[in-house]
């Protein structure tokens, strides 16, 4: 299996299908897209099954010196594996979400989605600096078209904002990459991850990468493109945007900023903490007053991503693992929530919360799923959200109790806005006749909801399946960061191991 270029194949399948979507009759485009994403899903599962946990750090590596200045170099570690798995899992769901709701220019729509899939897998699998950049940036084009062509009323403004914001963030990163390639004499990402850049240069490099990843993430205050883009994108677009695209920023931090510039990361950690704390509180409060469902979930995404960033810059294993799980969990849960919105949007064509009410009466099954994902978003134990947030916050608590305290309010506020949303949509009286007449989930919607629900519960009950492949890579990253690790304020002292300490402690605790 190792000699087989499975990653290249995973990139090729959606790309070929994208071209096919443009030439086949428009009614068949969605079938082509669904088949292609299923093939990629199967390939992704084969990838996971063959991934040797605890084996070599980089597996399934491929390399071909095809280009001048950079090469076609692919390979994955556990972190990339999990994100690729998330991508291939969400893609068929996105196609399913678009099955009936996209009624114009289907061929181009599915082609854009399939190109997106190629590029997202490419971002996670690239082992060459510039190959990564090309994949990272190229995603702008299909996403611009998806928002602009199939979006809602303000789609043009949203598409411009999305494109220009993220482009400005990324071009500076390109200059930093040139500098790095020049200084280190290689564009190979694994080599660069172990390369020690001069500390004063790290500051600038870190800032350039930060400019890009902070916009992609998105971090407060450069998050403003996200609510616009989300609200205007079609359901499938929102799912992929929230599910996978936002993870590119976090992946960038964990793959580039932290291992390549550890000293600068430590130096700028307070900046990250400040922005993240602001994000958690401010965007949660903004979410509380939204009247548009998609906007509410979009703002909640910003808050969740802030938990990811504090966890990443906690410089310890718990924080890093927690961040990865929050990313995976948020990918599933936010995707599922957008899907829930999409289900009722398809019926009533409005996202106004006030137009709904009492849906648990006429759509009981839908309400159960919606409740599950709401709880997962809040972080109820037993769902995926809990595991990630708990680990992240433990991680940050070791560094700064204050940051942990402020970020934990995010969970309380999260509960507030999510439960408030759920109450207004699913409970109460059926004040609108048309909303009350909506039918419950059909078979297609069941087929999308059930897998998401199963994985959310699986990740909540037995996160080990998802943590195991990443453990070694996160430990390696933690070791790499040890040289720059900032001192925590918690000042936890491990007492000398006393044989008889147990009894004393239990005794002391009782007082």
């Amino acid at each position: 299996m190792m000699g087989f270029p499975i990653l290249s194949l995973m990139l090729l399948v959606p790309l070929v299908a994208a071209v096919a979507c443009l030439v086949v009759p428009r009614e068949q485009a969605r079938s082509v897209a669904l088949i292609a994403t299923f093939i990629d899903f199967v390939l992704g599962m084969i990838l996971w099954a063959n991934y040797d946990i605890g084996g070599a750090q980089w597996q399934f590596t491929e390399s071909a010196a095809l280009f001048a200045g950079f090469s076609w170099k692919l390979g994955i570690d556990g972190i990339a594996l999990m994100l690729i798995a998330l991508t291939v899992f969400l893609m068929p769901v996105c196609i399913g979400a678009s099955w009936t709701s996209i009624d114009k220019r289907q061929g181009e729509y599915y082609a854009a989605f399939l190109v997106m899939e190629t590029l997202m897998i490419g971002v996670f699998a690239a082992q060459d600096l510039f190959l990564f950049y090309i994949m990272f940036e190229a995603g702008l084009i299909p996403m611009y078209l998806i928002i602009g062509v199939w979006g809602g009323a303000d789609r043009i403004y949203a598409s411009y904002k999305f494109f220009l914001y993220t482009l400005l963030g990324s071009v500076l990163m390109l200059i930093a990459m040139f500098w790095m390639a020049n200084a280190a004499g290689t564009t190979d990402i694994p080599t660069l991850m172990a390369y020690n850049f001069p500390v004063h240069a790290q500051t600038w490099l870190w800032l350039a990468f930060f400019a890009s990843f902070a916009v992609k993430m998105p971090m407060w205050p450069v998050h403003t493109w996200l609510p616009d883009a989300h609200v205007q994108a079609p359901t499938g677009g929102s799912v992929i945007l929230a599910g996978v695209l936002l993870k590119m920023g976090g992946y960038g931090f964990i793959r580039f900023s932290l291992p390549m510039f550890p000293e600068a990361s430590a130096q700028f950690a307070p900046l990250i903490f400040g922005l993240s704390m602001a994000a958690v509180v401010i965007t949660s409060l903004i979410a509380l007053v939204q009247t548009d469902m998609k906007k509410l979930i979009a703002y909640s995404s910003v808050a969740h991503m802030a938990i990811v960033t504090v966890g990443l810059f906690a410089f310890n294993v718990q924080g890093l693992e927690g961040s990865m799980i929050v990313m995976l969990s948020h990918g599933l849960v936010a995707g599922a929530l957008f899907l829930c919105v999409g289900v009722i949007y398809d019926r009533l064509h409005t996202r106004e919360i006030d137009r709904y009410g009492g849906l648990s009466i006429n759509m009981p099954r839908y309400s159960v799923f919606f409740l599950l994902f709401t709880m997962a978003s809040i972080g109820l134990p037993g769902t995926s959200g809990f595991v990630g947030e708990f680990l992240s916050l433990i991680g940050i608590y070791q560094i700064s109790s204050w940051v942990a305290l402020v970020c934990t309010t995010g969970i309380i506020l999260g509960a507030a806005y999510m439960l408030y949303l759920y109450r207004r949509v699913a409970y109460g009286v059926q004040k609108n006749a048309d909303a009350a007449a909506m039918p419950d989930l059909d078979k297609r919607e069941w087929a999308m909801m059930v897998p998401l629900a199963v994985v959310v519960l699986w990740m909540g009950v037995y996160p080990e399946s998802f943590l195991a492949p990443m453990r070694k890579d996160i430990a390696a990253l933690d070791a790499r960061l040890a040289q720059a690790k900032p001192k925590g304020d918690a000042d936890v002292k491990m007492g000398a191991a006393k044989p008889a300490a147990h009894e004393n402690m239990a005794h002391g605790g009782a007082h």
Partner: protein
Amino acid sequence: MDFARSLWLVAPETLLSVAGLILLLVAAWAGDKASRAISIAAVAVLTACAFLVAPALWAGAMGPDTEAFGGQYRADAFAAFGKLLIYAGAGVTLIVAPAFFDRFKAMRAELPLLVMFASLGMGMMVSAGDLLTLYIGLELNSLSAYVMASFLRTDERSAEAGLKYFVLGSLASGILLFGVSLIYGFTGGTSFAGIHDALSGQMATGALFGVIFVLAGLAFKISAAPFHMWTPDVYEGAPTPVTTFFATAPKVAALGLLMRVSLEAFGQQTFAWQQVVIFASLLSIVIGALGAIGQNNIKRLMAYSSINNVGFILIGLAVATQQGASAMLVYLAIYVAMSVAGFVVILLLRDENGDQVEAISDLAGLSKTRPWLALSLASVMFSLAGIPPLFGFWGKFVVFKAAVQADFIALAAIGIAASVIGAFYYLKVVKVMYFDEAIDKVRGKGELSHTMLLVLAVLANSPLAYLGTKCLGALADNAAAALFYAY
């Protein structure tokens, strides 16, 4: 160096001149009905010339063996690279021109001849080893170009474009000549090698003025800001095939010339002109980007886009290294491909009467009515904006890489940040084609030749072209090495 050898080195120019004169006689006797045949013959001659110059590029020819007529002319790899692009641009012009002018019954036999003589002049420009060769080449090209700009005599805009181009172009030539005379006065020679040696050490103020005047004159020819004012009017007014020509071949020739003059003749005084080039480059990027935002004519938009792109190319010159020169050549090659693709699409935008559609607002919803045409234009726009994975990105990639390698990090950062402004107007075209409601204005049919050219040019802009980066990079390195050959 014996005379026969010199004559062999100038074979492409000789062939072009002789063939041009013979075809001129044919045109005089056979009249305008032979114009198509003459066009085909001209393309054949240009192709033959391309085959004549190609070996020098592949072999990386450089040094004294490539000098003809006592160093006045150089047939090295750099000249070969430039000439291949020039012949390509000229050939494309000749392929698309007949269909365009036939509609106005204005296809005259002179057009292919003018293109040939312009190509001859441009070939001399990139081969120049002496200020006099430079000027002869430049004027031969310019005079042909002035006539071509006003070739559509029935159209007022075309006449206006020709006049403006002529007046401003003569002014620039005058400035250039003045600079040349100053340089001659202060260095005592006109050969690049002689100037190079004479300009070592502290430079006289008069010589500095000479350098600046020469650069200003050449900046006009490449339409770099602040000497860019003629570009939008000429691009808009000139018949579209002629605009295609202006956007490709003369740009290559003038930039090649600028590189020769700056890096060879003034190569010892890098610091004297570097700031000027940096200023012109950043100003071009910003003016090209801002000026384009309000345009509704797609040809004017392409004009501002060319100003913008020249700014990026000049970044390669500003760093004054061999990598920079190589990067400029790669960018130029990609730029020619992008321009050809762009203008062929523009030529294919016709309404049901066959008239050209030039207003961007008339392209609304093109993606619904003509999906493949819209996709081509969108790919050109994203490519011009330098968004990966399209090949336009590669041009920016090599130029900025060279800048960073030469430690011009601030220049690179400012330049690339300004490129985001440019992205805005390229996006506007895509937005009109993809997001707006269809008005179905573009309905005309295109010729097979146009379609084939378009497919080729779009493929050259597509991600597939990355597979050719090694070959392109090696050729550009050959050419740049010839430029930096120490005399």
